[in-house]
């Protein structure tokens, strides 16, 4: 039963992808699922009212309800990929197994906080408590924020770039402004100046807003004294608390 649900969801995912590609052809669908093609499964999706199938015209498409469900699955799938992709830097196929080896304590704290400090693992074994559980942090230490929310002089690692425009992505990539690069914000006004991999780049607000970074990265040693950096960190965290609280 459980597997069948998973299979159905796989079908809905494929159909969503076809929709994205602008196709309603049954042939395309069969090509997409390859050996997993199962007419019974399709029938049951149709009878659930999730899929419309026209065997004569060889057309298949999601109903409104089906699209709704598919959207949720796809969202979950891609957010998951996104998370692993951003943290491990691209290789999400094999990343999951590497998880416990690669992840930093800081990051575990962040995820722990996001999950509400769970006490047990899915198998029922206790999870050793971390610093974040003891201080009952309600905000993840590491968060993705738009680059423009950094403070001047702060350094951060790029998490992702929100752009649909391929050309803009290329332009930024040519300058090595891309996930995993370290950027430093130098100036916000009259326009943004960012240092990235040895080059200074002037950007307007629109582009800076599309660049998201891991906030609160390691401070740049050569730049400010420890004391200043410390003060800034605290100020920053309060600011984020406020943000987070407002969202809730």
């Amino acid at each position, binding site marked *: 039963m459980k597997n069948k649900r998973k299979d159905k969801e796989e079908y809905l995912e494929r159909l969503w992808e076809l929709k994205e590609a602008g196709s309603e052809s049954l042939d395309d669908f069969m090509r997409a699922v390859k050996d997993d093609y199962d007419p019974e499964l399709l029938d049951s999706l149709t009878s659930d009212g999730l899929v419309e199938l026209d065997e004569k015209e060889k057309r298949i498409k999601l109903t409104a309800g089906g699209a709704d469900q598919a959207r949720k699955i796809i969202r979950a799938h891609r957010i998951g990929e996104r998370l692993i992709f951003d943290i491990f830097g691209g290789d999400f196929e094999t990343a999951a197994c590497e998880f416990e080896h690669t992840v930093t304590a800081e990051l575990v704290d962040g995820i722990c906080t996001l999950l509400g400090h769970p006490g047990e693992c899915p198998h029922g074994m206790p999870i050793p408590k971390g610093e974040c559980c003891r201080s009952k942090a309600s905000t993840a230490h590491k968060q993705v924020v738009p680059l423009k929310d950094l403070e001047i002089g702060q350094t951060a690692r790029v998490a992702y770039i929100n752009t649909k425009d391929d050309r803009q992505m290329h332009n930024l990539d040519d300058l*090595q402004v*891309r996930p995993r690069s370290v950027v430093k914000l130098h*100036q916000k006004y*009259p326009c943004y100046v960012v240092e990235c*991999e*040895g080059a200074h780049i002037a950007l307007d607000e629109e582009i800076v807003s599309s660049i998201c970074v891991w906030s609160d990265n390691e401070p740049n040693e050569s730049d400010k004294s420890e004391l200043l950096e410390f003060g800034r960190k605290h100020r920053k965290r309060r600011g984020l608390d406020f943000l987070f609280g407002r969202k809730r």
Partner: protein
Amino acid sequence: MDSESARKIMIVGLPNSGKSQVFNNLTGEYTVVANSPLTTIQLKRTRCRIGNQICEIIDTPGLHGLYVHSEEELVVRDAIFSDRPDVIIQCMDANRLKQSLTLAADLLTLSLPMIISLNALDETSRKGIWIDSEGLSRLLGVPVVESMAIYGQGTRELKGLLEKARRAMVKVRYGDVIDDGLLTMGAELRDDFPYNYTASLLMLRKDPFIMGQLAKTYGDLKVKSIQKEADEIRGRFRGNINRFIIGKRNRWIDDVTEKVIKKQKIAPREFSQRVAGLSRHPVYGLPILLMVIYAMFYLVVNVANVLSEWMTAMLWTPVETLITRVFPSGFWHELCIGEYGVLSLGLANALLTVLPILGVFFLLFNTLEDIGYIPNLSVMTNRVLNKLGLSGNAILPLVLGFGCKTMAVLTTRTLRSKRERNIVVFLIAFSIPCAAQLGLNMSILGMMGAGSFIIAFSVLAFIGVAAGMGLNMILKGEEKIPFIQELPAIRFPRPMPVLKKTYYRLYWFLKESLLVFVYAALALFTADRLGILDAVKRGLSPVIEGVLGLPLAMTDAIILCFARREAGAGFMINLVRNGEMDYIQSIVAVVITTTFAPCFATVMAMGKELGARRTLMMMVAIGISALVVSGSLRWILITIR
């Protein structure tokens, strides 16, 4: 030297990575180098002998990668595809190794013999960054030469390696699906096109131009069949293939840099970075700009003017006395040293009035260029330009207009929006004085006092902004293009390169325009003798005297300005020196000669970029606006006083 035997060597690299400097080092010629992107905007070729071989060295504009978005970026790729160089020299700026490796990853796909000139190592070592050039060479599979091009270091090694350049064998791997696909696609082109791997990769990435380029040579049919192959590979691949390819490439770059770069944790805080920060600062930036302008003004007035007057006294007065003794008056006297004399208006004007002023001005201007100050101004002016309907990308051409208007007009081709291009060309032609004119204007107004300089240049700035706002309203809007501009690093000016550039700029000035000065003088002399000049002056006197309130002799200056800015300005300097123009007249004269019409070379460049019809329309608009502005300026100044 026949073209068959010459070995083609193409110098490629990121913008502002020292390509032109390497070109100069290899060829022994001189092309302008500056600490700024867009210094080279056209291919430049020259032949020279390196070792036992005759080589054709090709300097190219900056390039970020072989995947391009717009026509103007195509220039270099086209050059590689059509010229088929024997060797590629990639200039890498050691400060920007990662960015350089993005380009290297693309260049390596060409499988051409390649050498890397790893440049600006003096700067990285100061920053506490060490680059293992041997390791880099091993990882990329091509020779790497350590170099500090501006000092000529590394040139000998580069020349030595040219003969040993090896075919690049290293390529970024993208996984079986893509790698195998690229081989299959490439196989279809193999015999026809040497860069089949590169072309396949570009097709796979849906480069907007590669299809058309290949179709032209190899026919639609073949390209279609390869295109089908590419579609099939994309189909087998889930997700955005472009992003995947970029991701893999970035991973490769990270791997390489991780192995070859060692960084100290603590680096000296760089004074130059401070200067850079201050010069773009929202509060301190403007005072610094004003101080820079004032310092230039001060030096031009107090050094150049004095120098020029001294040279006139020392060199010209004896000549004048001598000629007067031989020909006390009459035709020969007039022809040599009369009002339109070949020696007085021609040679003396160029050599004794204009040359010293340009000398001092270029020395200062080249120093600013070497520092990299000017492109950094784009940060300051971004918001103002937005008001004029221009994106930040338009700043660089505008700012470069203060160097040479002709070059600036040519750089407008980097602007993607047609509308922006029109506005920028208009502003360059109308309200921006080129370096030579700026220096000479400073000198003219300097004799009247700093107040006149401030008035004249505020007016120029004002009409520039007004014209921009006007055009912004007239021309219909287009989608806004986001602003991304790489800024050159601020550097300490280095005396030798600055002196060398000043020398060459003066040399080019003399080479290009000394004869123009003489011919212009001859033409005016002839026109004067035939009575044509008088007729023209009489015809124009309602405008010159009536509207503008200038002495009639200014007609000559305006005519000279068409031929060569400097000739007209030199003539004006003499008018002011002889007391023929007062305070207001000098200001009006500077404004009208700056705005009225760009010089001949600029007009040609405009024609090339915008087409003849539009250029003509623009010239008429500029002429009328200049008259209206100068006329009302005179009226306002008289009323106020």
